């Protein structure tokens, strides 16, 4: 599988993701500058975390007008995999490739901490190597990660099995105490209708080897490489 890591001005997890894809997964990986217009030949497109365009106006709002985003949308329409993490998730919602929005954490603080996450579906390209209900530990690092969506959207996400991950406690219980940012229904990640576009606030690329403090991110990234069940 060939990975493209999109770089916007202000992206700051691009090298982390490059390292994860290239060295932890052993896949051919290229950086793609946001002004470029070609993603042919790539299987997986990564929108990494950071503060694209300084988070001006709203997180992700400006980035979605970069030339590469039209190509990301075409890649998604063709059924290609797109994974947005943190700021990448924010960009995907702003671009309309995923429903809902991400806004200021209810506690107003930037939170950088390990989170327990419950896998809500194994029917996705980022969780197919996991079983539903499994609890994994992956860090978040954001100020605007509170997922919100109207009731109809939440109903559709639940009904279509498109919630990827929820914040939970160590036992896998989804509680208000385990919700770091006030996200609707503790949602930490979701899938598109076609199931080939995924967005998540937690950073799997930050936990891909023991030296980094954990390897649970590999469970997600290895799923991308495994064949669909």
């Amino acid at each position, binding site marked *: 599988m060939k990975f493209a890591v999109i770089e916007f001005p202000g992206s700051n997890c691009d090298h982390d993701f490059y390292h994860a894809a290239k060295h932890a997964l052993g896949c051919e990986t290229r950086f793609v500058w946001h002004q470029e217009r070609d993603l042919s030949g790539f299987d997986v497109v990564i929108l990494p975390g950071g503060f694209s365009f300084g988070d001006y*106006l709203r997180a992700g*709002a*400006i980035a979605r007008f970069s030339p590469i985003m039209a190509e990301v949308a075409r890649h998604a329409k063709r059924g290609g995999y797109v994974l947005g993490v943190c700021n990448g998730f924010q960009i995907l919602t702003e671009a309309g490739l995923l429903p809902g929005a991400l*806004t200021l954490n209810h506690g107003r603080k930037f939170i950088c901490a390990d989170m327990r996450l419950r896998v809500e579906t194994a029917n996705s390209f980022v969780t197919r190597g996991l079983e539903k209900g499994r609890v994994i530990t992956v860090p978040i690092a954001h100020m605007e990660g509170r997922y919100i969506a109207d009731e109809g959207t939440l109903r559709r996400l639940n009904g279509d099995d498109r919630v990827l991950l929820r914040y939970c406690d160590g036992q896998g219980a989804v509680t208000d105490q385990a919700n770091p940012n006030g996200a609707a229904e503790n949602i930490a990640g979701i899938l598109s209708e076609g199931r080939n576009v995924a967005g998540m606030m937690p950073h799997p690329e930050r936990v891909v080897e023991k030296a980094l403090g954990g390897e649970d991110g590999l469970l997600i990234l290895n799923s991308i490489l495994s064949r669909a069940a």
Partner: protein
Amino acid sequence: MKAHVIVTLKPGILDPQGEAVRQALATLDGVEVERVRVGKYIEVELGEADPSGAMTALRAMCDKLLANPVMEDYRIELVEG
């Protein structure tokens, strides 16, 4: 043509920033503040001189970039000059 665009959070969307401001305002003596909502104010200068053409363009700007329809409402005020 100039325009003022006011972007506000939709009713029902939690506004942690507004709540922080309310708490700070509550420390002022003799002021009772029940609720604060913080929004955005944007000034736009357009080449378009025709008001209806300007409004059409401004609405498109709001729908596509200046506001996020998932969580925000907007109001446009055209200003002479």
